[in-house]
């Protein structure tokens, strides 16, 4: 009985995988439109972080406060050999709802690594860039490329990194 179950389950999993693989190769011409992202919650919103920029997601490390920094720069942390700043993503991107960070997403930037706090990590998924909704009024939405059909804010790493308030000089 047990064995039967396992066999059935395995068959199902294999079938699902085959479906997935088949779908991907079928849509190959659209790959330029596809972007792999990780969905994370921040406050009451969901953010999508492009995997190509993501180094790792770690549990909230111990963060050391640094003087003369604005409140959205939470401090510095030592994550696997590198020293990086940790940014309150909710505050920088003006996310709605109260954020209770439990993880730090470490992203690659042209200058070096940067940590972004997120509340929880949901899943990773391929999204189609052509299906993004770009709001007309982008003034209250910073560092965003648009909103996915499932209402996640796609993070624009380039504009995030070039926000002037990220740099203390």
């Amino acid at each position: 009985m047990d064995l039967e179950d396992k066999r059935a389950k395995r068959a199902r999993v294999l079938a699902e995988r085959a479906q997935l693989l088949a779908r991907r190769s079928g849509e190959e011409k659209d790959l330029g439109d596809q972007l792999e992202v990780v969905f994370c919650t921040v406050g009451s919103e969901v953010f999508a972080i492009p995997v190509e920029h993501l180094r790792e997601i770690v549990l909230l490390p111990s963060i050391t406060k640094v003087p003369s920094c604005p409140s959205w720069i939470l401090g510095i942390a030592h994550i696997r050999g590198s020293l990086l700043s940790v940014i309150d993503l909710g505050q920088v991107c003006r996310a709605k709802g109260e954020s209770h960070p439990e993880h730090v997403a470490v992203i690659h930037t042209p200058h070096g690594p940067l940590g972004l706090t997120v509340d929880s990590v949901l899943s990773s998924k391929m999204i189609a860039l052509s299906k993004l909704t770009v709001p007309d009024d982008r003034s209250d939405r910073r560092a965003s490329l648009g909103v996915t059909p499932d209402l996640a804010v796609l993070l624009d790493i380039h504009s995030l990194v070039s926000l002037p308030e990220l740099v203390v000089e």
Partner: protein
Amino acid sequence: MTIDAEMIEVVRREVGEALDELLSLTERFTNETIPAEAFVRDAFRVFHNTKGALRLGGFPEPERIAHAVEDQLAKMRLAGEAPPPHMIDLIEQAMCACVYAVEADGTHPELALVLKKLIGTGSEALAERSDDADRTLIENTVTRAEVVNSHNTIRIESERLDHLMDLGSEYLAQNSRLKRQGSRLRDFSERFSNLLKRHPQLRDILQGTFAEFELFVRQEERELRRVTQLTADFDGAMRAVRMQPLSGIVPQLRRTVNEAARDLNKKARLTTDFGEVELDREVLDALREPLTHLIRNAVDHGLEGDLERAEQQKNIRGEVRVEARVVGANVELIVSDDGRGIDLKKVRRRAEELGLVSEGGLESDSELVDKTLFFPGFSTARAVTNYSGRGVGLDVVRSRVSELGGTVSVQQRAAGEGIALTLSVPSSVVSLRGLSVLAGGSTYVIPSAHIERTLRVFANELGSAEGVTIMKSPDGQPIRLRWLSSEMQRPRVEDPALLQVVIVGEGSQRLGLVVEEVQGDTTYVIKRLPWNLRRVPGVIGATHQGDATLALVVDVLHLFRQQGAASTEHRLKVTPRTNKRRILVADDSLTSRTLERNILLEAGFDVEVQEDGRNALKALEASEFDLLVSDVQMPNMDGLQLTRAVRAHPKLGRLPIILVTSLDRPEDVNQGAEAGADEYIIKGQFDQEALLRAVNRLI
């Protein structure tokens, strides 16, 4: 023949030494300490050898120059003529040009200039080549070069070395973490042992297990000592790999002196004494700029013009001297000149203009010089020259050196004897020494280079002047106080009656940094702050403590830069007495006093701790307490002496006292009672309840 880089280095050194020798010859000749004949003979030899070396090194252009000068000197020698003054200058200039050219891989605009002048003198030998003497010389030089080559050296890409260093620093940090774990393990074992002593019923059950545990702890401690020793050896070896002889920067310094002297129309020479001193590659590179800056300054501001020097019967050729010596883990570089020195009146006037000192202020000369010379934008130079006097200078030098974990100080010499600046830098950046302190609940590291001493000061002995809180140093000087927690924008805790102060200094300036606790000496590896936090005022970097936490490294210079910042942030913070009862705990054991403090705090008392009788007595005198809980055996003044002192004290006489001790013989208890203690708690039976019951009985 392929020219090995090592070989070129030999040629560079030789040409550099030739310039030194030539400058000393021209100097002696102009001083008339050697006759013209001897000068021409020796200068000829110097140029002849230089020519040979240049040929060997594959530097045809400077070789031509050397040959032409040699030829001129040969002619003078034959004719028995003394070289005219313009010729002396040309000879020097020619050798300088050769030095520049070999530094710059074979050519330099200066060469063409010299060549033109030489052609003007009618040199016929500009195209002549090789003779027998040259061949012998080449052979000699080859032998020298081979000696250098035969050393067992290998070349390593600096990136690989850096990677190795990074790994090494992680290793070092891990070791500090292990050491902390080790002492925690020891602590556990002691607590375990105390528990067993107190509860005989546990002893029977746990004796065997505990013995095993003890054995394990001892073994671990042995292992830890071994690993610590290995880490220290490894650290030493890593440092050695990065070391380079300081003498390697001599050519660059010499070029700086020559160029500055030529452009400012002065006569100057560089003398160096570096001995065998070696510096970390990174430190050496970082020092190049500050050093050349100091040297340019010395030629520009320090050295007088020819006329002025002649008037003062000084040698026309001014001297800029750079010496190095090893002082402990640091290297001291002393840059001095024999110029006019510092005009104190001028400096004071400028300082007053800049508002750095009040008119007729009380600063000592050395304090004044220090404050003013290193002030951003300060300059007494009359004209803004190409070289210095723009007022960017010494302050930049000081911050560069400080970034390396070093200091700069200035020594004034007798009038007209020039000045000396001392740069003290750690010889290695692999690991630096610092003091780990607690402020605003976070750990910070203060570089040892800036620390003069740590001490405790009574809050009621502080004064204030011009809105700044000051304390009296042990030598009677007033020292301004600043609170590190405020500097780091951390919440200020309430100040205890006895403040912990770290006296930091730079040059002749001093400051007292108030911290909550001094955690002890630490060896640290500094890391730069991340890319988006390049310039954070007051912080030069961070260091990780082995575990995942980071400590910021304090930029002591920054504290000095923002002088006079008299804010309420830097005053004592004492809230008015609450209706909480205050208890002073005196115990030399950290574990005991922490335990007692926590018990009492939890029970709602206000608690202050001191680690010996003497400090406890001072604290009692400085502030009001309702009760004293004291250990018996303590250094400096034990609990019995403390009890007697309190009983004999005119104001404290009636303070309730509880003695807590492991001495439980009846005569010990009697002694305590005779000294005047109200209660006597034996540590063997010590428990929370006993202490609290005794406290509640008394207050």
